């Protein structure tokens, strides 16, 4: 199992020091935390931009910032949240967890892994630097010809930044795939894999298939921008619709790239804190693969009112509708998992159940959007903004918070504070619904998106949204305080504070540099809660766990 080229190197170091986190370190656990912390910093930046956007929208006039700056703000907000927060945070979680979950010492290609991470800070800083030369202002979708006409420097920086971040994502995906396929401990078959690994398999496959197409589109856009070619520029015979197809061929899969890791995380968290096996392991595992496949053939549902012929609109309506089925399987499976369990309603579980509750709303509006005649009405309206935030904030971000509360004791050896955690959850959940629920109505009534100036009749609902967004902004503070306080003074958590069964809990917290002191043993399935207790003469989970603990110390 020792394919890591870094073995000799890491054997010399006894302990991690904080300086390791600022170096080109090849330990997947260091890299995982580097990803998480870096992306969290960008989350704060993206959040500040969001607060600016909502402040502008508190009034119907354009009075807080100039219309150009407004467009720059939502463009950079969207780009940061997607490419610098959710995608890298998912990669960070995967980096940290996959080798531990499969009993490996590190990722398959540790150096490549470090390279992938170290592309993120320059990519992000580059994007931030664009504010000095006029940030991009054509939206995160950057449709030509508009993107070719609004500030060349900012647009080119945007393209380069996305190319760097996309490359990083591809390198990460290669690593996840190789690690899960090849580095599992010998006795671990595919159906012993924790569901998080299944979802990362699906994610990695999507990244590898779709991201190169985005890169191609952006390189062509770059040529149009700099050397006046006409791939997408209609003045030279180019076709802007081709860009849209290439863009969405990546960016629809991208939305699943952003949610699948958290689907996986939730499938880990709910069974542990409900003390019950996951309901329908195979169905949930295969539904990830189904989503991964179907996700590749639905992209033109973002183009129903664009240059898409009628028959094609019908085709993409059908595929998009079908993708709701595997998504539904997961949601029902999670509900059945907690049903009848013995739920520990701690912060991790609150965020986990909050995830299901909020993602549900985004999933339901997603099915509505699949209906072409209805989508034609609400496309590019605030209904879309509501949908995408319920899946990305209600889904990915709540899922990520659940994951942080769940795995923080593993990463640091300390618990997060529960009181602060609950305050964080309550503020986040209220803020989320206050901000995004009214947007459904705004969109249905006719408020279009990406505007700084709107009709005065929409002001009341917009003020509610703005208040909600301020609550969300406030909600980050309890979390930040909690993180800092717990790292320094938090209650010590042992190797397995949640009494969980997946392998990452079979080693010390934080894990040793080489992950496991001795080869870990696969003595139960990942979700066998309650299974042993019911069989007489067999050891209970509890006893098994203490055995393991004794072995380790």
């Amino acid at each position, binding site marked *: 199992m020792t394919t890591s080229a870094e073995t000799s190197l890491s054997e010399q170091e006894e302990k991690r020091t904080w300086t390791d986190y600022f170096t080109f370190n090849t330990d997947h656990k260091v890299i995982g935390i580097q990803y998480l912390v870096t992306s969290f910093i960008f989350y704060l930046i993206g959040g500040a931009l969001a607060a600016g956007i909502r402040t502008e929208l508190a009034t119907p006039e354009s009075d807080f910032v100039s219309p150009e700056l407004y467009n720059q703000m939502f463009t950079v907000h969207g780009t940061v949240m997607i490419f610098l927060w959710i995608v890298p945070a998912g990669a960070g979680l995967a980096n940290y967890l996959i080798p531990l979950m499969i009993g490996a010492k590190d990722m398959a290609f540790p150096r490549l892994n470090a390279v992938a991470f170290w592309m993120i800070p320059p990519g992000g800083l580059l994007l931030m630097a664009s504010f000095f030369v006029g940030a991009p202002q054509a939206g995160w979708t950057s449709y030509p010809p*508009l993107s070719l006409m609004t500030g060349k420097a900012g647009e080119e920086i945007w393209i380069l930044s996305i190319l760097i971040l996309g490359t990083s994502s591809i390198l990460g995906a290669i690593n996840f795939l190789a690690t899960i396929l090849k580095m599992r401990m010998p006795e671990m078959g595919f159906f012993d894999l924790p569901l998080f690994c299944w979802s990362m398999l699906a994610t990695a496959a999507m990244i590898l298939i779709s991201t190169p197409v985005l890169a191609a589109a952006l390189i062509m856009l770059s040529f149009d921008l700099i050397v006046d070619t006409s791939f997408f520029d209609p003045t030279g015979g180019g076709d802007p619709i081709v860009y849209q197809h290439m863009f969405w061929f990546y960016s629809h899969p991208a939305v699943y790239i952003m949610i699948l890791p958290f689907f996986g995380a939730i499938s880990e968290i709910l069974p542990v804190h409900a003390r019950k096996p996951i309901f329908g392991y195979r169905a949930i595992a295969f539904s990830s693969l189904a989503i991964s496949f179907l996700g590749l053939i639905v992209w033109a549902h973002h183009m129903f009112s664009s*240059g898409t012929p009628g028959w094609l609109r019908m085709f993409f309506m059908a595929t998009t509708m079908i993708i709701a089925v595997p998504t539904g399987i997961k949601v029902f499976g999670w509900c059945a998992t907690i049903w009848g369990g013995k739920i520990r309603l701690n912060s991790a579980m609150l965020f986990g159940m909050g995830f299901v509750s909020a993602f549900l709303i985004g999933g339901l509006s997603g099915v509505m959007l699949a209906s072409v005649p209805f989508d034609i*009405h609400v496309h590019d309206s605030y209904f879309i903004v509501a949908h995408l935030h319920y899946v990305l904030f209600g889904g990915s971000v709540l899922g990520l918070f659940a994951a942080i509360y769940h795995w923080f004791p593993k990463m640091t050896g300390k618990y997060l504070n529960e009181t602060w955690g609950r305050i964080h959850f309550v503020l986040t959940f209220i803020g989320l619904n206050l901000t995004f629920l009214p947007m459904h109505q705004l969109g249905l009534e006719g408020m279009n998106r990406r505007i700084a100036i709107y009709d005065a009749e929409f002001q009341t609902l917009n003020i509610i949204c703005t208040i909600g967004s301020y609550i969300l902004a406030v909600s980050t503070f309890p979390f930040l305080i909690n993180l800092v306080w717990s790292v320094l003074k938090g209650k010590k958590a042992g190797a397995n504070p949640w009494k969980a069964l997946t392998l990452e809990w079979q080693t010390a917290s934080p894990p040793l540099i080489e992950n496991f002191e001795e080869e870990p043993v696969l003595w139960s399935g990942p979700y066998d809660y309650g299974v042993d207790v019911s069989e007489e003469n067999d050891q209970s989970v509890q006893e098994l766990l203490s055995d393991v603990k004794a072995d380790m110390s």
Partner: protein
Amino acid sequence: MTTANKLTIISIAIAIAIISLWYGQSNALLPVAASPEAEAVDGIFQLMMTVATGLFLLIEGVLIYSAIRFRKKPGDETDGPPVEGNVLIEIVWTAIPTVIVLIISIYSFDVYNAMGGLDPEASRDSGPQQVAEKTNSNQGLEGLIASVSDYLALGLGESPANRSKNLTPLSVDVNAIQYAFLFTYGESGVVSGELHVPVGQPVRLKITAGDVIHAFWVPQLRVKQDAVPGREAQISFTPQRTGEYPIICAELCGPYHGAMKTQLIVESQQAYQSWIDQQQVAQSQSLEDAVAVGQTDPLNAYAEEIGVNQQTLEQLPPHTH
């Protein structure tokens, strides 16, 4: 399962069904529907809202109930029952959503067809039809002018119902530019910044863009179509309710995108006719002016083709690139 349990489940199911039906049908989330096509779309919305409300209540109910009823008792450190799945239940919850989305798909297909979305004349895309040309006028106006062509358009065509009734549609050309819509009435030659149509007569819009992508959206008609430079799109609708409705640009087209708005005025045949007459008188005057100035302006050749005259150009906010 005890009888009491069964009764509870049945009454919960009935309650969910009633609330969903009520909310699905009576929510006032959509603006008035000003055309039969819009009413048909609302039918889909109501069905989808009914189903969504039911699923919402069911799943949120399960979550809240679980959080209360299945909380761990203090001191209880044992695990829950080791239920790992149930093939029958899993088949049911795969099959039910499948049937639901199948029904919604067929219903949507039907409505989309009735709206004219599958009219072969309008639903095929023949790709970019024209190499748009970049123009540089001496007034510093730089823009992109795609000339109207006879190729097949893209979008919503004639609805089968109207076709069978043999109504002749009113045809208007829509040109979207930063940050205005220009409406050209083919028959009368009227060019306007507002869209006036008579009630009851089908309307067919040919939509083009002059610079970047825009979108034509009238929420009360539930129709939207992007205006893409270099290709022509088409939408059709039959206004059946007089009134003024907003026409909104729904595709980001620059800093003043939020201000790119105008009115659709659905009025009686008489009022419409007198408006056309008025416009014709006013414009015959200004067009002459425009042609006189236009001798030296290379833009005018194109401008005339799409019906832009000096006056309409001056009304537009300056272009900034």
